[in-house]
């Protein structure tokens, strides 16, 4: 790219550049000329005035391309400039590998705007599968700064689905989860990979190994909501099987026995019990030890659990109270059956 796109060079005002002498800048429509106090604003206003001129003249030229680069650097959120840049790139048939470098340069300063990602995808789409390695590298750089970068994750998912590159993705998720086990984005990507990778055989094929991986993660940080949700996700549409997996009940017991970070474990146990788990003596004992002495002693397991949850998570007390009410409704038919059986005996 031309020298005036390099950072660090002293800027010549556009009005003093010979190649722009034929262009009459177009000031912004709706305001008086700003009384500019700082040089940066001077530069900004001048660049935008020249941009308006080439945009209105629909000038799809090399100098216009360079001007869009200057304008985007000053205002990367301005979508009109990006769109015009794409028009120019198309018209000139410009080699697009360099365009990836340009996007990277802009993203280094601010990667949290939609325009950068939209443009990046447009370029990558035109380059096709040869872009995969570079796109992985680019998103990785973003994750080094912010491992939950929403745009970067969406972009990475798009690359995987459009061009492949699944081979190392599960390992990559693993690495990010090791870096920060609370990174919900990495957990989401893990789920994306095990359910969508053409190489892994799908959710059912992955379930056993994933359950054990997840349970180990819960052991490390039982207060982390991500692996608990992930565990439920592994039994998507089949909570009955979740309730009969002995590993799940035992991780609940293990966490509850520590008497701290109870919310997620209790919530899971509540789900298990509501879906048919016959709680072991160990589980019953630990729940009993958590219930206030003032609670009625003849409560069923599910209602005891929700009472404890109301206590340990007061901010969501209404939610847990509601859970208690639905649990009662769910178990009621069984109690009725027992009652009727008792009568006929």
């Amino acid at each position: 790219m031309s020298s005036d796109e390099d950072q660090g060079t002293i800027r010549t005002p556009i009005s003093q550049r010979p190649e722009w002498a034929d262009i009459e800048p177009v000031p912004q429509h709706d305001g008086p000329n700003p009384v500019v106090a700082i040089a940066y604003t001077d530069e900004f206003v001048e660049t935008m005035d020249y941009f308006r001129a080439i945009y209105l003249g629909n000038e799809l030229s090399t100098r216009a391309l360079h001007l869009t680069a200057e304008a985007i650097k000053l205002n990367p959120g301005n979508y009109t400039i990006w769109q015009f840049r794409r028009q120019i790139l198309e018209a000139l048939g410009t080699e697009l590998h360099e365009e990836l470098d340009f996007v990277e340069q802009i993203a280094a300063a601010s990667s949290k705007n939609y325009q950068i990602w939209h443009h990046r995808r447009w370029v990558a789409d035109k380059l096709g599968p040869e872009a995969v390695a570079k796109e992985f590298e680019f998103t990785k750089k973003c994750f080094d700064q912010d491992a939950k970068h929403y745009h970067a994750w969406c972009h990475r998912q798009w690359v995987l689905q459009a061009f492949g590159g699944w081979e190392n993705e599960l390992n990559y998720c693993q690495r990010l989860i090791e870096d920060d086990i609370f990174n919900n984005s990495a957990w989401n990507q893990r789920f994306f990979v095990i359910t969508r990778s053409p190489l892994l055989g799908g959710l059912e094929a992955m379930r056993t190994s994933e359950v054990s991986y997840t349970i180990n993660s819960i052991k490390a940080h039982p207060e982390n909501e991500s692996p608990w949700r992930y565990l439920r996700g592994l039994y998507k549409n089949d909570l009955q099987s979740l309730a009969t997996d002995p590993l799940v009940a035992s991780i609940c017991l293990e966490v509850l026995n520590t008497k701290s970070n109870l919310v997620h474990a209790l919530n899971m146990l509540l789900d298990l019990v509501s879906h048919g788990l016959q709680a072991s003596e160990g589980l019953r004992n630990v729940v009993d030890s958590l219930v206030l002495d003032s609670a009625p002693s003849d409560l069923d397991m599910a209602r005891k659990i929700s009472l404890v949850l109301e206590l340990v998570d007061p901010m969501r007390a209404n939610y847990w109270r509601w859970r208690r009410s639905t649990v009662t409704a769910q178990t009621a038919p069984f109690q009725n059956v027992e009652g009727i059986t008792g009568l006929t005996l």
Partner: protein
Amino acid sequence: MGELVVEKHTKYIVTVEKSKDSFESVVMEHLRLNGAYWGLTTLDIMGKLDVVDQDEVVSWIMQCQHESGGFGGNIGHDPHLLYTLSAIQVLGLFNKTDVLDIDKVANYIAGLQNADGSFNGDIWGEVDTRFSYIAICSLALLRRLDKINVEKAVEYIVSCKNVDGGFGCTPGAESHAGQIFCCVGALAITGSLDRVDKDLLGWWLCERQLKSGGLNGRPEKLADVCYSWWVLSSLIMIDRVHWIDKDKLIKFILDCQDKEKGGISDRPDDAVDVFHTYFGVAGLSLLEYPGLKPVDPAYALPVDVVNRIFFSK
């Protein structure tokens, strides 16, 4: 906990709207129509819409419209769905939607639907569930939902649902409160809320409340006033708002006010902006804070405006 400083916020918004030559407004120039929506809706919720010159705003908005029927973010900017919805909403606030060539605008929006039911934001083809919401909300306000394939639009949104009950920007993308608002809002408007796992999603949403009382948009992120809107409105639409601690949230929002100069920030002691001022005030309205007009959680407009649009001839 202090009160909502209505007069100060009014003054702040009017100043921002008028200061076209401030540095901030130069940088924001391309999304001024969004800014107008945030500022003017906030004023209306606070009962202060009469401080602005309606005719001036309406004539400016109409200059942002293109041949295609879509609106740009300001005069001289390319058309995009994002600004087209803002234009319709602001005209709705002023009861001026009749200045529009309704079918022209509706055709522009309908033309952005893809075969799979999703929507592009503009002719450049970016797909996102935000655009599904914007298209559906806009067309509903124009009473032209029949111009699109609603069934396919709903199917696409449902394909973005995750196992935690939330929604992302595209199928498989992480659940995010902003995207959840868009998806739940679009499903509410199209009468498809039965496609939401309300209990599961409601739990995910109420888990967003942190000890400070504020809400975050994803697990392990900071609380931010804008999520008061996205999380709250979603909870209301699925009828689960009583699952959070409303008083603590009200306190959190009020603590984000600049009590001297007006405006609301993302979290206490940060710099204020119009975007968060809108989300703070709209959030308080959803929390039934006294003195504010009620806001419709799906259309993101005052309820009386929505009623006027749907129940007028």
